[in-house]
């Protein structure tokens, strides 16, 4: 595989020169990551409608194409053809900038996600910090959208979003600290590799050595905070239809609305990837007998994404003060306490991380 | 990964660590029992300070110990200043208990912030590095800003807190700027390292003096020396009296330690330069403080201006250590110990004076005007006598502790060749005697305007009496405290 790749790349490199080649090759890699991602987003919306349909004993979309498979394409075409409305009193520049600011971090974060051993765009040492920094930037899209719309519902949505996203970022960050402590690295590849050692690995039960088991409470905190961070049900007060219509997206239409939509689903997939990498062993196979590979990561992400949909179909929406209480009074103290527990555990003779 | 890491020696910092751990205990105890057992936080705070005192006494072995990669120093001076600080804070807590309870301010946060302010002072006293000096100062100041504003319904207190915060932040900025300049010139943040670098003379003098100006300005701000004194009257006046009592007492010890460590331990090579700056500020402070105090009708404001003049005296002692650029160890120790003696004596008197203001206050009534002291002799001859002793001592009338403090400082100044300055200082303190004696006149020769009985609790009465007796007793036996100060400094320099 590598030899084949080199055979193709070497002449191109000679043709373009080193600087231009780096730029072009990086761009190619970006496309290779983003194109499947966009496709996944499209089919995630389809899958969501299907799953929720089945859970509610309905059929879900089944008209367009075989089993409704062309539905997301049709939706995309429809959104493309719709007019982008600009409210008369909106702040025009920011109104158009907001969807871009919302989707850019959701895509930029993928730069450091390792899909398999060595399959990563930028294998930087402070990968986790980069992820935290980029995801903390996502809230701007929502706030600016809410403010630039110059309308009441969007503004409420923006206020709620900024408070909620900042609150849950804290517990997510704290939960991650325990992961960093046990894996002794900020590099995502190393974090995955650190999960491939342990007593259970020698029994062939690799999945018992992944972080989710020893850090079980933090796995829960991270997963739930991830749901809240992406403003998904049951924490979707930011855009809860029955409360504030669509929150910050009320005034948006056509493709500008679709950008928010894409950002939300891209963020969901990102959170799923992060959960899989930090707690579920990334591309590692669950049993020692089976080979590792990207398909395991994909499977784990699909499972986490299914959880997102499952939550949406089962839980009623939280009240706003309850969301804040859960974040600040339950998750933050719990994660702080667990950092202490893990620290003591690592220093004690009972440690399982050496 | 950490193969060259040595666990720092925690033994010298034991009091600080104990205080920090106990503050967490107070935090949790207040969280759980705060609503039902109101006095628990106060009790625990006093216990904490007593525990710190015990630890400090046990661990004081007279040796100078450096720890935390030379950022923390534990010498006899630090131990002595810390002990006086604990004592002062305990006295503050006892004096202010009833006052706070009457105004609904005796919440756990008050005691916590007092504890953290104490920690800040301890850090400053034991600092051997610019970074720790700055952090200790910020810890102390931040706690004090919040304490000044603790009574949220009093707009005057809020205004005072705002002024204190803005000016204090600016002073910290000046201090930090000066520190960064000196760091740039000497390449060291350690006080010992700075002194060494200057001794070897590799650093640029221009930059050093430039940094020194900012450093001295920042220190003067914190001490409240003219021309950086603007915040003192407003904050003393605006803050709840209990907080004024705290601000006016223990932090002066920490400020003394900070000045000594920065200027004498660190920048001794520039003594010629800072001497001139301090001289000017000392004379201005003594002059302006005493003159402005005459015009005051509010006793808290009057005491604020008197603080300015007292700090001027203290600085006068501190700058007399070097004579014309020549260092004579005997003169130096004499001068620094006179300044230390002055600081301790001032804290003692200030505690008593503000304690009297607290004594006369009661629920719904602030006894903060001079008129409230009218005819105190008829209401309570004993406490009128205590106030008399304190006022006489502050005025520098023999034979109270304040007299010997002034005497020691002036002697040091004369020895250093500042005879004219000493004469000017004496003249102004004669002017100052006027307003102190006015209080005595009001107490003994005027009829009371307010005849309500004094309702202070017994512990406060006893402690305030001891305070007054101590002011008199240290005046009768001045050598005891003086020789303690000299020994302390001799073994720490």
């Amino acid at each position: 595989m590598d030899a084949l790749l080199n055979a193709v790349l070497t002449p191109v490199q000679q043709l373009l020169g080193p600087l231009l080649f780096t730029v072009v090759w990086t761009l190619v890699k970006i496309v290779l990551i983003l194109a499947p991602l966009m496709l996944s987003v499209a089919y995630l919306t389809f899958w969501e409608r299907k799953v929720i349909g089945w859970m509610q004993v309905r059929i879900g979309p089944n008209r367009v194409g075989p089993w409704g498979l062309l539905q997301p394409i049709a939706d995309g075409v429809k959104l493309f053809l719709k007019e982008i409305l600009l409210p008369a009193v909106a702040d025009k520049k920011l109104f158009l900038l907001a969807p871009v600011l919302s989707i850019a971090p959701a895509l930029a974060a993928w730069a450091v996600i390792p899909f398999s051993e060595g399959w990563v765009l930028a294998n930087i040492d402070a990968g986790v910090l980069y992820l935290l920094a980029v995801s903390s930037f996502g809230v701007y899209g929502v706030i600016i959208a809410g403010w630039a719309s110059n309308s009441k519902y969007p503004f409420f949505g923006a206020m709620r979003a900024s408070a909620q996203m900042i609150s849950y970022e804290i517990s997510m960050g704290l939960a991650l600290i325990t992961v960093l402590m046990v894996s002794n690295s900020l590099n995502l590849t190393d974090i995955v590799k650190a999960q491939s050692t342990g007593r259970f690995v020698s029994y062939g039960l690799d999945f018992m050595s992944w972080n989710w088991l020893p850090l079980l409470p933090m796995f829960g905190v991270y997963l739930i905070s991830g749901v809240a961070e992406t403003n998904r049900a049951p924490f979707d007060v930011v855009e809860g239809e029955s409360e504030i219509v669509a929150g910050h997206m009320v005034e948006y239409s056509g493709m500008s609305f679709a950008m928010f939509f894409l950002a939300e689903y891209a963020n969901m997939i990102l959170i799923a990837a992060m959960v899989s990498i930090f707690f579920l062993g990334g591309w590692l196979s669950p049993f020692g007998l089976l080979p590792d590979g990207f398909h395991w990561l994909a499977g784990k992400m699909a499972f986490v994404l299914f959880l997102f949909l499952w939550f949406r179909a089962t839980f009623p929406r939280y009240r706003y003060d309850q969301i804040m209480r859960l974040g600040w009074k339950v998750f933050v103290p719990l994660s702080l306490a667990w950092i202490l527990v893990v620290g003591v555990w690592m220093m004690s003779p009972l440690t399982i991380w050496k | 990964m950490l193969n060259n890491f040595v666990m720092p020696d925690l033994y010298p910092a034991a009091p600080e660590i104990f205080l920090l751990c106990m503050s967490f205990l107070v935090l949790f105890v207040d969280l759980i029992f705060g609503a039902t057992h109101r006095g628990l936080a106060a009790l625990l705070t006093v216990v904490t300070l007593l525990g710190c005192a015990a630890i400090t006494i046990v661990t004081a072995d007279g040796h100078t110990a450096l720890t935390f990669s030379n950022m923390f120093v534990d010498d006899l001076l630090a131990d002595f200043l810390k002990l006086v600080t604990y004592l002062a804070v305990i006295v503050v807590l006892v004096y202010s208990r009833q006052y706070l309870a009457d105004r609904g301010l005796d919440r756990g946060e008050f005691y916590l912030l007092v504890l953290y302010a104490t920690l800040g002072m301890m850090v400053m006293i034991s600092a051997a590095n610019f970074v720790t000096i700055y952090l200790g100062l910020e810890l102390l100041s931040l706690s004090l800003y919040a304490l000044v504003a603790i009574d949220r319904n009093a707009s005057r207190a809020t205004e005072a807190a705002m002024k204190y915060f803005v000016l204090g932040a600016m002073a910290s900025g000046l201090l930090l700027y000066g520190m960064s300049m000196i760091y740039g010139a000497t390449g060291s943040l350690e006080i010992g390292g700075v002194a060494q670098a200057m001794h070897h003379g590799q650093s640029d003098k221009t930059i050093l003096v430039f940094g020194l100006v900012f450093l001295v300005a920042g220190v003067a701000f914190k001490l409240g020396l003219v021309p950086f004194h603007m915040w003192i009257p407003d904050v003393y006046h605006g803050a709840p009296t209990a907080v004024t009592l705290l601000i006016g007492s223990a932090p002066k010890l920490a400020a003394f330690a900070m000045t000594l460590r920065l200027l004498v331990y660190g920048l001794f090579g520039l003594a010629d330069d800072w001497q001139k700056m301090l001289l000017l500020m000392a004379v201005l402070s003594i002059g302006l403080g005493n003159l402005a105090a005459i015009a005051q009708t509010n006793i808290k404001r009057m005491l604020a201006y008197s603080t300015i003049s007292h700090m001027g005296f203290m600085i006068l002692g501190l700058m007399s250590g070097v004579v014309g650029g020549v260092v004579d160890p005997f003169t130096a120790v004499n001068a620094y110990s006179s300044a230390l003696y002055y600081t301790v004596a001032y804290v003692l008197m200030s505690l008593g004076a503000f304690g009297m203001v607290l004594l006369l206050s009661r629920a719904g009534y602030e006894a903060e005007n001079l008129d409230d002291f009218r005819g105190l002799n008829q209401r309570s001859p004993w406490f009128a006598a205590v106030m008399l002793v304190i006022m006489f001592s502050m005025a520098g009338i023999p034979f109270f502790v304040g007299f010997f403090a002034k005497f020691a400082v002036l002697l040091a100044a004369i020895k250093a060749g500042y005879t004219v300055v000493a004469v000017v200082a004496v003249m102004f303190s004669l002017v100052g005697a006027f307003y102190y004696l006015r209080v005595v006149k009001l107490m003994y020769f005027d009829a009371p305007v307010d005849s309500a009985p004094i309702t202070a609790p017994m512990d406060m009465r006893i402690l305030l009496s001891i305070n007054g007796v101590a002011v008199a007793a240290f005046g009768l036996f001045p050598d005891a405290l003086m020789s303690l100060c000299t020994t302390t400094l001799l073994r720490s320099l």
Partner: protein
Amino acid sequence: MELKTILFYLFAVIMVFAALRVVTARNPVHAVLFLVLAFFNAAGLWMLLQAEFLSIMLVMVYVGAVMVLFLFVVMMLDINIEQMRKGFWTHLPLGAGVGLLMVAEMAVVLSGRYFGLQNFPPQNLPANHSNTKELARVMFTDYVYPFELASVILLVAVIAAVMLTQRTRKDTKGMHPNDQIAVKRNDRLRIVRMVSEPPEVQAVDAKAEEKS
């Protein structure tokens, strides 16, 4: 020109532009957003200096948290920008003077004559050099005491903020989820044991009605 140099000037130009716009923007929200842009570019510059930890922290702390709260406040306020801009031109000389002074000072510092900067030549570190790890190592060993002190200062800030802002009003209708969750059946429901109504009473009533 190297790619690094191009990037440096790109970041620097955008940063200076953004900083100027922070001061000159007519809309406070725009000003805050330009400040965010300036921070972002500063982070980029730090990244070029191989200080990746500081760079990412700048984005995380300032852009991700501080500025969001700042924006939150600015959006809520009704700032009369015309009022604020009054006297812009009269204060400009002073402000510009201070700015120029700072530039001059920085020039003195960076020229290296006074501060011995020439003793610290730029280090060419290998690409896998982790300055996050280096910082952590220094922070938790040599500087552990200031680090702990800084955390105590933050704790004081938290206590002070809570003390100064939290007030329990009597008329709030807020709910207490703790109490709601802790509710037991016995708090809400009282089962009263009582004899069921005897049928003959009804019969007597019926007779009484017939009579009237």
